[in-house]
Every structure is written in structure tokens, then in C-alpha cells.
């Protein structure tokens, strides 16, 4: 009886959750004139015109490619530097450890608007403007701290006897870390990668500031279209639906890892 109530509640929540997304999907399958002309619950004259435009116009579809490139780069860099750091925080006591741990998080706390201008100057000075690497590096500012915080939780859940035994058995630190420790928290790494991917994928302001044409992400291309032609709801909806696809694919492929990771972590 109680389980049933839970399930019903969950189903209602999921229906509400899907409603805006459903609405965007129906909009993306209609022409803009049709959208503005009438209100219908489901599209009667389905057209793939909006999607065709995005898939045939390189200024549109390159936006997805660009975003994918820097998001993957950022996720890789974030994990690479956050793994050893999180290990240090979960295992060792050292000068300034607590302050350092909190300081990392403070990098997520600055309002981006005014900080974007110095970012522009900094990355112009070092000649990285309009490259994927620039955005990947800038996003490390908020993703590395998050990755360290999440991984530290997973690592603290692993008993320290495992480390001690390995060191007594004569493992060097890098060998132990790569061949024993990381496989132990593999699922935790999956969850962390998901969060890095997500925050880098959805960030707009820094990505827009640091790119001009070569590395422009889809989210920035969408805003440009709003100001240029007025709102083309159908096209925007199609572009919006397509922004969900990469992330949805990522979680679909790592779903078992995620379920496992969520089962083991204190995060």
C-alpha cells in the first residue's frame, strides 16, 4: 500500500517533469507560422523543417560539435587533476588542508558577469581566444572544485586498510593509485564525470565570452538567433531538443555505472 503511494507520487512527478520537454518537442515539429496561429495539444502537420535547417547549416550544427569538444576536454582535465587532489584530502592531514578544501569551492561563488571581461583579456593575452581549450580551461574554475568535493566523498568511503596493505606489499603510489584504487571507485568517477559534463555543457557566459566563431557553442548560437530574427519558436525548440540529446546519450551509456556509483557513494 505504502509502496504504491510512493510509485504514484513518483509517476505524477515524472509527468510534470516531462511536460515542458514534451511541449518543446511538439513545437519543434511545427512551423513557426503554425505555432503562432493556433493552440493544439499535439502537432497535426508534422514537419522536420526545423531539424533539417540545423543539420544542413554548418553555423548551427558546428555549435553542437564545438560544445562537445570543449565539454569532453574539460571533463578529462577536471578528473585528471581532481583525482589525486581528492585522494590527498580524503587520506592526509597537511598544512592548510581544510582551508584549501573550502577555498576550492569559493571559486564557484563569484558572479560571472563582470568577471567575464578579465577572462577575455587574460585569454587574449595568452593567445587562446576562440579555441576549445580556452573554454575547457575556464570551466575548470568551477568543475575542478566540484569534482574534488564529490570524489573526496567516494574515496573516504574506501577503508584505509586497502592502501596500507598495498604499500606493505611494495606497490609504488602511482601503481597502487591507478591499478587498485581508481578501479575501486570507478562508479564514483562515473558520477563525477556526469556532473562535470553537465555543468560544462550548460554554462553559457564564459563559453560565449571566450569564443568568436571557431569554437562557438550551440547555446551562444541560439541567443544570437533570438536577437537577429525575432523569435523563431520552431527553430529554437528544435535546437533546444537537440541540446538534450548528447547529455541523454551520455547518461544512457553510463546508466549502470551511475546506478552503481549512486549505490556506493556518500558522494
Amino acid at each position, binding site marked *: 500500500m505504502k509502496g504504491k503511494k510512493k510509485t504514484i507520487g*513518483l509517476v505524477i512527478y515524472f509527468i510534470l517533469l516531462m511536460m515542458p*520537454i514534451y511541449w518543446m518537442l511538439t513545437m519543434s515539429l511545427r512551423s513557426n507560422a503554425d505555432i503562432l496561429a493556433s*493552440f493544439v495539444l499535439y502537432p497535426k502537420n508534422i514537419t522536420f523543417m526545423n531539424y533539417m535547417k540545423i543539420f544542413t547549416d554548418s553555423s548551427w550544427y558546428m555549435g553542437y560539435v564545438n560544445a562537445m569538444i570543449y565539454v569532453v576536454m574539460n571533463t578529462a582535465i577536471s578528473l585528471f587533476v581532481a583525482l589525486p587532489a581528492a585522494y590527498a584530502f580524503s587520506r592526509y592531514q597537511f598544512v592548510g588542508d581544510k582551508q584549501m578544501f573550502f577555498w576550492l569551492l569559493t571559486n564557484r561563488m563569484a558572479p560571472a558577469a563582470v568577471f567575464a571581461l578579465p577572462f577575455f583579456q587574460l585569454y587574449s593575452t595568452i593567445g587562446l581566444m576562440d579555441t576549445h581549450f580556452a573554454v575547457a580551461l575556464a570551466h575548470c574554475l568551477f568543475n575542478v572544485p566540484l569534482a574534488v568535493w564529490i570524489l573526496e566523498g567516494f574515496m573516504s568511503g574506501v577503508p584505509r586498510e586497502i592502501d596500507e596493505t598495498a604499500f606493505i606489499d611494495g606497490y609504488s603510489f602511482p601503481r597502487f593509485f591507478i591499478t587498485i584504487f581508481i578501479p575501486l571507485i570507478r562508479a564514483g568517477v562515473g558520477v563525477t564525470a556526469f556532473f562535470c559534463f553537465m555543468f560544462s555543457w550548460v554554462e553559457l557566459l564564459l563559453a560565449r565570452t571566450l569564443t568568436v566563431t571557431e569554437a562557438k557553442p550551440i547555446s551562444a548560437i541560439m541567443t544570437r538567433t533570438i536577437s537577429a530574427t525575432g523569435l523563431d519558436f520552431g527553430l529554437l525548440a528544435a535546437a533546444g531538443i537537440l541540446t*538534450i540529446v548528447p547529455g541523454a546519450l551520455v547518461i544512457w551509456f553510463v546508466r549502470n555505472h551511475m546506478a552503481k556509483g549512486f549505490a556506493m557513494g556518500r558522494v
Partner: protein
Amino acid sequence: MEKWPNNKAWFLVLPAFVIVIFSAIIPLMTVINYSVQDIFGPGQAVFVGTEWFREMLGDYRLHDALWRQFLFSGLVLLIEMPLGILIALAMPKKGWGVPVCLVTIALPLLIPWNTIGTIWIIFTRPDIGLFGAGMNNLLGIPFDHTDNWLDAWITVMLMEVWHWTPLVALLGYAGLRAIPEVYYQAARIDGASAWATFLYIQLPKMRGVLTIAFLLRFMDSFLIYAEPFVLTGGGPGNSTTFLSIYLVKIALLQFDLGPGGAFSLIYFVIVLLFSFIFYQALQRVGKGEKV
């Protein structure tokens, strides 16, 4: 268990430290530099000391935006934390439902922030939106977020709750799944009610994840910009002009870097201060009742 004292651990933290400070320190120094100068153009600036800080602290529109921001973040935390925990409790523990739930619930999180605003424009338009038209035509309640401040607030809150409750739910779910079965067995033997099990086992065990969820939700809701800006543009009037929307008005649209810099630093210090207080408080709460 005590951690091993070893200062060499700094070498493990170093790469993360370097990569973060690279993007952190120079922009921060530059903004501090802006905040104490009156900038007329490239290379033309006068040192003005704390003038911008005094001007910003006395700006009544900033005060209004700040109170609005506190109300918004407060409501966000009050709604999203309990709702997220409830959803986490209701999610299935095993079987095919687990991956389906995880994927579905993560969908809103994966949409770029300005796209979120766009979705909600389309969703709430009184003429062509499912929600807007439903309210007006089906229920007969006049609803237009471009016209009425209360409707605008409701729309922004709905959008925010829709967008970010999944984050709390996902983190809460992770915390719940990490509780060993023996705790539940012990609770059953003691004849504990579901409420007591929640209060004395599940909630304390979720403290770690909920701390992260709480801090993330506080910071990100306090800094929210793109979603309400796209949806309402801060209106009607100034009713949804949150702190960052007002900041952008001052700093970028009027191109006033001095006041903008001072505003940014004040803003940063407020977020930092509250995050620190919350962090300390959440570290302490529940320590005593740890099983």
C-alpha cells in the same frame, strides 16, 4: 580514524590548485582593480578609493534586488530540499526502474540555461503555451507572466524547481543507496516507525550529500542569471530583477566597470559569507546523532 599527517600530500593537490588559480586569481585581481578606479577609457582611469563601494552599498535598487534575491534563494531551498529528499526516498532501489528514473530525472539538468528560459517562454505563453493556455482557458485563471508580478514570480519559481530539484534528488539518492542494509534491519528489530527510521538513520547518513546539495543550490540560485533573464527580462517592472540581472544592467549595459566591480565584490562576499555559515552549521548539525 585520524588521517595520516603528511605535508607531501600538497604535491597531489598542486595540479588542481594550479589549474584553478590560473583562472581565479588574475580575474579577481582585475575586478578589484576596477572597483577602486573611475575608468573613462583604455588607459584613462583615476583612483577613487572606496567611493564605488559606498555608492553601491547606498543604492536602494541594489537593496531591493538583494531582498528579492534572499526571498528567491530562501524559497528555492525551502521547496527544493524537502521535495528532492522525498523524490530520492520514492525512487526504486533496484530493477529496471533505476536507470529509467536516473535518466529521466537528469534531463532538466542537461539543458543549457538560456534554453531553459526559452522552453519556459514557449511553455507559459498565454496564447500558445501548454501551461499558460491551460491556466487561462481550461481553469479560467488569468495568467500572464509578462503582465503580473505574482505570475512572473510563480513562473520563475516553477521553472527553478523544475530545473534544479533533480540535482537534490540525485545527490540524496546517492546518499540513501550508501546506507548499509544492517541499519534498516536494526531499525526493524527495534520496531522503529518509518518516520523514526528517516529521522535517526536516513537523514543523518545523508548529511554529507545534503550539505553539498544545499551549498550548490544556495550558490547557484543566488547567482542565477540566464534563466530568469531570458524568461522575464527582470520584469514586469523590476519584480524579477534579481541581483545578477541588476549587476549586468549596471556593469555591461551602462559599461560602468568601477561600480560593476565594486558590486561584484560585495556580491561575492555575501555568497561567500553565507556559504561559510551554512557549511559550518551543516558540519555541526547531526554530528551528535550520528549512528
